[in-house]
């Protein structure tokens, strides 16, 4: 270690315990004196820098932390409370909306529904191919699930089933009449404002508002549509 290095080290850190530094320090009187001077200056520096901290600083820091913690917990509780309230209200809204969806018949555009009915009849080929004699008890049971009741005969039913038209469930019946097969679709949960006629290259029919929801009657011959309509109107009643 040269003299310059020694003086630099002694200035920066006079208490340095590096053996080379200690050896150099003991080399002569000047080095000892220089190191001692630096130690004295360091002590002075230390004394000046060691200012007194406010007496109650520790207590105030802890108090401030506890208040902040309390505030955070309070805020968290409030947020949780509001979050729970929000979740509950959303859940309630969903339940109400769903119940309304189930209970209240939806009023939609009749032309659109008429199109959906025709499409359904074309797609559900099975219904027109089945040749069964569905007992009245089965018809009564299915009608009862929607709150409907037959007060009199509507003719021979060759098919009975649930169906979905335009996103809503209904009852799909096929009547075997003298003029041929007639499809009757009861849509108790789909209301329409006005009747609409159905017609394409194969079928004719009518979609009309009912006491509950709507009814569609489709057949190849217009006359059988009208006859079936009269029978249905006379004998089908909705009690709910």
């Amino acid at each position, binding site marked *: 270690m040269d003299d310059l290095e020694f003086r*630099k080290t002694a*200035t*920066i*850190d006079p208490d340095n315990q590096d053996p080379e530094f200690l050896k150099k320090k003991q080399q002569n009187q000047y080095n000892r004196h220089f190191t001692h001077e630096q130690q004295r*200056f*360091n002590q*002075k*520096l*230390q*004394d*000046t*820098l*060691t*200012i007194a*901290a*406010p007496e109650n*600083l*520790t207590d*105030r*820091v*802890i108090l*401030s*932390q506890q208040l*902040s*913690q309390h505030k955070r917990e309070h805020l968290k509780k409030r947020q949780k409370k509001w979050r729970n309230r929000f979740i509950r209200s959303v859940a309630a809204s969903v339940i109400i909306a769903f119940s309304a969806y189930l209970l209240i018949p939806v009023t939609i555009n009749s032309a659109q529904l008429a199109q959906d009915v025709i499409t359904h009849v074309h797609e559900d080929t099975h219904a027109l191919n089945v040749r069964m004699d569905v007992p009245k008890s089965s018809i009564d049971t299915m009608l009862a699930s929607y709150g409907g009741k037959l007060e009199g005969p509507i003719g021979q039913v060759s098919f009975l089933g649930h169906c979905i038209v335009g996103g809503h469930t209904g009852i799909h019946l096929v009547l075997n009449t003298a003029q041929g097969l007639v499809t009757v679709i009861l849509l108790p949960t789909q209301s329409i404002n006005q009747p609409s006629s159905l017609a394409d290259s194969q079928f004719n029919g009518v979609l009309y508002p009912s006491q509950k929801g709507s009814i569609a009657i489709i057949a190849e011959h217009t006359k059988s549509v009208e006859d079936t309509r009269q029978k249905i109107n006379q004998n089908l009643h909705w009690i709910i």
Partner: protein
Amino acid sequence: MFNTKKLTIGKKTIEPPVYESVSRQNRFETLVKAYSNDLYRFAYWLCSNHSIADDLVQETFLRAWKALDKLEDEKKAKSWLITILRRENARRFERKRLDLVNIEDVVVEDKVNLSPDQSIETQQLHQAILNLDIDYREPLLLQTIGGYKTSEIAQLLKLNLNTVNTRLFRARDQLKRQLSKDRLPIHRITT
């Protein structure tokens, strides 16, 4: 010292929440008691204002409380707290830059709040330290108040070791020069 007993249920290890919060609080209070005075000194010599130093210490510990779980090694607590305090001080300057005020509305506080029982030489040294450029003052504070070795200061300030040594040397050199320059005014003050 700060570890809490953990419960093991099946494959899950659960720390009891009550014990955990008590332990966390104890751990925090131990840190405050051990380091608040040193942090206050460090803050004061950084910002040269007692009230701001007080705020800096409060803010530092609030941040430390929020991030306490990140402190894994208690031996590093002091460096960790000093790093937080330095960041807080830097934020103070960022905020200051944003808050533009009319200079005439600002009451300029005395740089040095000296007590009457301090010797003239101590008062001069006090002022000389505050006059040091922050680049020189900060390593000096870390060495003298923090008790850090030069290598540790280099790590804390993210500086080269030679740079730290140079700054420490120059800081002391400037203080000595300032003190010898101030010797004449001592007579003016005392007479």
